[in-house]
């Protein structure tokens, strides 16, 4: 390679490496702010601010969803399997919101550790399958549990 071109090649590598390092460090420093939501464990550990607008995300605990009889109020809990946070929300939930599925709630944490949500979003996971496959999977899981039990 011609020495001039070799020098330009080194310059190009230098530009890419150092700009990547600079931006990488910046992103790393801001990492905490890039997270869309707090996991319940951090809320339980007191890392989430009280009285401020925050988001909490996790799996909706099976059997925790309680709907009010005379209003749109819903109570449920989200968990990351280390801790769980109770959430109160008044409004219409997205279609994919369900027990055992991911959800992200935006709202204000009160002193007793309950999140007063103003918005609830359903989080979709990376699993895509046809309904028949899902049923077969569930049936085999049930069979497995019966055999184990």
């Amino acid at each position, binding site marked *: 390679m011609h020495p001039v*071109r070799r020098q*330009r*090649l080194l*310059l*190009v590598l230098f*530009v*890419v490496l150092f*700009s*990547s390092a600079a*931006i*990488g460090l910046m*992103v790393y420093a801001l*990492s905490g702010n*890039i*997270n*869309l*939501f*707090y*996991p319940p464990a951090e809320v339980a550990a007191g890392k989430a601010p009280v009285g401020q607008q925050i988001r909490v*995300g996790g799996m909706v605990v099976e059997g925790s969803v309680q709907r009010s009889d005379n209003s749109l109020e819903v109570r449920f809990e989200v968990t990351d399997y280390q801790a769980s946070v109770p959430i109160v929300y008044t409004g219409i*939930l*997205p*279609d*994919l*919101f369900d027990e055992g*599925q991911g959800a*992200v709630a935006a709202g204000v944490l009160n002193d007793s550790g309950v999140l007063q949500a103003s*918005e*609830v*979003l*359903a*989080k*979709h*996971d*990376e*699993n*895509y*399958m*046809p*309904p*028949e*496959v*899902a*049923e077969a999977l569930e049936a085999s899981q049930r069979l497995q549990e019966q055999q184990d039990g």
Partner: protein
Amino acid sequence: MWSFFHKLGSPPWLYRISGSILRWLLPLTIVALFAGAVWGLLFTPPDFRQGNSYRIIYIHVPAAVVALAGYYVMAIAGAISLIWKMKMADVALRASAPIGAALTFIALVTGAIWGKPTWGTWWVWDARITSMLILLFLYLGIIALYEAYDNKEAAGKACAVLALVGTVNIPIIYKSVDWWYSLHQPASIKFTGESTIDPSMLYPLLFMITAFYALFTCCLLLNMRAELLSRERRTGWIARLVAESR
């Protein structure tokens, strides 16, 4: 190898060879896009949770994948332009920017359309979506920067540096869903280990991704040919080309 590289730098050769590639690649791409869309929309089962709304994946994922890959094409063209001062590399850089911008825009819009029924919101400032928006601005910025210069050589140099600096965004977009808590789900297609998407849905998706790569190649060559004709309009080979076609 080097002689091929030198030939790439010759406008008449590139114009001729791209013409003969496009003659079969362009019809093939159109057929593949149509076949892939029909396969994905009509001949795949619905998803067990989302029903039919997941089918937007056959546009959303290919557009996003090729938007990221296209950025590397543009950045590598920029590096070649800086190191070897090849005019054709500048042409390739300028030609890939609008295609990448269009694909990024498609990925963002289809994502929003899917997000409303699935998540319950059109837009959320999570890491994946925000970094994808930055990608769109990078592409648009390169187009604007190139057009801001009258001297095309200076324009190519400035754009090449911007394209190279912007490459840092690509791994950030790709890994954003793993590094941070985001609303966007992690990748379903995995290079190592089993993909978490059923094969009956995966194959048409892989087919569409391939078709989108071909589409990118076609658009790139078409754009480059148009740019070549306008840049070299006063040269002998174009006069001969025009005389031949009469």
